[in-house]
């Protein structure tokens, strides 16, 4: 999931009787699957939760360009370079769709980006891991975008109209990302040297657990999930989504001829799902708090981009003002 641990500000769910008439109308609309639009009345907590979740989601798309940007100049062929650039451009686009959806709630894009740069806003933990070899571009596309798709497909049905519509658009584009990633790995496994095949397994070994962490904490450790589910911002729980992802990914992993770095991973005939080992939650919370391998580097890169691009934005405004003046004269 691109938004992990979103605070809803609620300790306990309200019953319908405890709600104000407005709150009750709102909840009944949500329950009836009627989408909430920007101009409709909504509880303050709903608005704030959405701003937090959508901004985290948008920040993740934007920061998510950085691990891949690392490989644009190092892509092995022109074809791969073009594909990678197209994917990165999509991430920028996804960030912008989401910031637009967030702005319909009355939030300001600059302010939210400032919060990110001040370390006050979160983004997905996954982007704080380094991309060390070319196979990482394959593994990121396949596993990271794959995990994002599982989450985002469900979010297309989220209760807030503008968020839902942004997700529909994003999902359409996302499957290209996953396929191009998987194809990088397939080519390396089919035609690569032993060294290249080892790179694929190494990339999977490093990114497997962080990809599973993308779905966020266990359901019973996730106090905000309940409120988000009632508001239908979230439609499926973290653990459900994680299980879906694992179940659909293992056959693809086996087809590659690779393994997951999890000795407990095995098919469970009874449940019809894969069992898997414990996630290192300390690592997850450390990365989320800012102590992952690349947190500082990612944020300083973002700050540098904004600061060093300031003159371009100023020039654009000056140019627009001049054009306006000329047109008036």
């Amino acid at each position, binding site marked *: 999931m691109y938004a992990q641990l979103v605070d809803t500000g609620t300790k306990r769910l309200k019953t319908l009787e405890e709600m104000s008439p407005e709150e009750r109308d709102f909840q009944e609309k949500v329950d009836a699957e009627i989408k909430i*639009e920007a*101009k*409709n*009345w909504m509880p303050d907590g709903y608005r704030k939760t959405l701003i937090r979740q959508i901004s985290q989601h948008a920040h993740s798309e934007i920061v998510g360009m950085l691990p891949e940007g690392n490989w644009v100049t190092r892509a092995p062929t022109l074809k791969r370079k073009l594909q990678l650039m*197209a994917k990165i*451009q*999509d991430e920028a*686009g996804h960030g*912008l*769709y989401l910031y*637009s959806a967030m*702005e319909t709630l009355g939030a*300001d*894009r*600059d*302010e939210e980006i400032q919060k990110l740069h001040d370390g006050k806003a979160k983004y997905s933990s996954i982007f704080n891991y380094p991309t060390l070899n070319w196979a990482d571009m394959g593994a990121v596309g396949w596993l990271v975008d794959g995990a994002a798709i599982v989450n985002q497909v469900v979010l297309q049905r989220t209760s807030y109209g503008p968020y839902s*519509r*942004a997700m529909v*658009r994003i999902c359409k*584009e996302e499957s290209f990302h996953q396929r191009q990633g998987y194809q990088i790995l397939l080519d390396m496994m089919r035609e690569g040297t032993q060294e290249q095949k080892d790179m694929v397994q190494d990339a999977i070994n490093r990114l497997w657990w962080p990809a599973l962490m993308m779905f966020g904490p266990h359901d019973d450790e996730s106090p905000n999930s309940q409120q988000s589910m009632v508001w239908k911002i979230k439609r499926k729980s973290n653990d459900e989504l994680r299980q879906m992802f694992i179940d659909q990914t293992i056959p693809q992993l086996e087809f590659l001829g690779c393994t997951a770095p999890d000795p407990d991973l095995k098919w469970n005939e009874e449940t019809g799902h894969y069992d898997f080992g414990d996630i290192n939650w300390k690592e997850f919370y450390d990365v989320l708090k800012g102590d992952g391998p690349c947190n500082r580097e990612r944020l300083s890169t973002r700050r540098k981009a904004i600061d060093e691009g300031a003159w371009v*934005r100023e020039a*654009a*405004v000056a*140019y*627009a003002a001049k*054009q*306006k003046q000329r047109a008036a004269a």
Partner: protein
Amino acid sequence: MSEWRLYEVFVRSKHGLNHKHVGSVHAADNEMAMENARDLYTRRSEGVSIWVVPSDTITASASDEKEVLFDPSEDKVYRHASFYKLPDEVGHM
């Protein structure tokens, strides 16, 4: 960017179809709004024509005006063809 104006973007996906609202962009001027809209909303040949409109120039109905504006048409069933029952002998009309 806050100092940049917000524009709503409408895309005609095919000749013969209406322009449809697809989202918004920020831009310093109209020309940049068009360029940004093209980059953001038509990366995969989603359109053959784009409109960009400054958001603050749009007059929208408010949600609390819903009844005032739209309820009056609810009790005018005679505005629909299905209100008029024709004998079978008349055939399709």
